């Protein structure tokens, strides 16, 4: 890379943070929906939440927290010159993303086989509060799942840039920003897990 290329690290990171703020407000809107309907249908939210399996939610919490650790360490590894360790950790993160989605697949499949999915006849026979709970649940975790897939693709692209030397120990801001996006995915789940899976177990 030529030394004359202007690099604004602060600007690049700040731009990423501004984008993340819009993401926080996007999911914030969904959490507000949850809060408003929780205050309207507290009993139905508890009985609907009890139908979610804590093992799926808890397992995916462990997977995401660990993947966040991998990404955080990968940045330090790259800056210390341990490129191989960095790539291994990013590969591990993508594996965690895959594990998360496989979990989600089995979780949703079980729900679908019980006839619980948006617009299903069985769901529409439930009390209104439970219908709302499951609809918000599918929108929130579905949108979050899309973020997991996008995050994994961004990290895979970053790995290619590291392998080609475009991202390296002296020029790492792309990895930093990709990492910020991945941590956001983890942050959203930190709130999804207790609100949906643990609401009075």
């Amino acid at each position, binding site marked *: 890379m030529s030394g004359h290329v202007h690099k604004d690290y602060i600007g690049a990171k700040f731009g990423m*943070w501004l984008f993340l*703020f819009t993401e926080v407000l996007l999911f914030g809107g969904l959490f*507000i929906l949850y*809060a408003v309907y929780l205050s309207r249908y507290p009993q139905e939210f508890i009985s609907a939440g009890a139908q979610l399996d804590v093992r799926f939610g*808890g397992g995916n919490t462990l997977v995401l927290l660990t993947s966040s650790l991998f990404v955080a360490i990968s940045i330090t590894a790259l800056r210390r010159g341990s490129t191989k360790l960095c790539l291994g950790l990013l590969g591990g993160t993508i594996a965690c993303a895959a594990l998360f989605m496989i979990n989600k697949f089995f979780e949703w499949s079980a729900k679908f086989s019980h006839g619980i999915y948006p617009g299903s006849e069985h769901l529409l026979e439930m009390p209104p509060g439970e219908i709302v709970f499951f609809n918000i649940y599918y929108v929130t975790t579905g949108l979050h799942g899309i973020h997991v897939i996008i995050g994994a693709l961004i990290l895979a692209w970053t790995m290619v840039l590291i392998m080609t030397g475009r991202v390296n120990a002296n020029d790492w*801001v792309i990895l930093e920003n990709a990492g910020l996006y991945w941590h956001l995915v983890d942050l959203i789940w930190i*709130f999804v*897990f*207790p609100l949906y899976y643990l609401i009075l177990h």
Partner: protein
Amino acid sequence: MSEEHAHIVPYKTFVIVWIGLLILTGITIAVAQYDLGAMNIWVALGIATLKSGLVIAIFMHMKYESILFKLSLLSALSILAIFIGFTFLDVLYR
């Protein structure tokens, strides 16, 4: 290439934060087994806020960023709080 080299966070710090996050997750699950009435949701939200604080401060390096980043985060969260607060002023006192 970049003049202002940000702080390099040691591996150990990240691992300690990760262990902390796992412990807090365990506490959330344990507390949810007891019926504390309306307190359950506040305990869950309190622990989730603590966990996200750890992730933002250490994993996302906010602790090592300049005041500009911290103030912008504060304003984004304030906007979210206003968003939530005014919605509930409407919903609860309609």
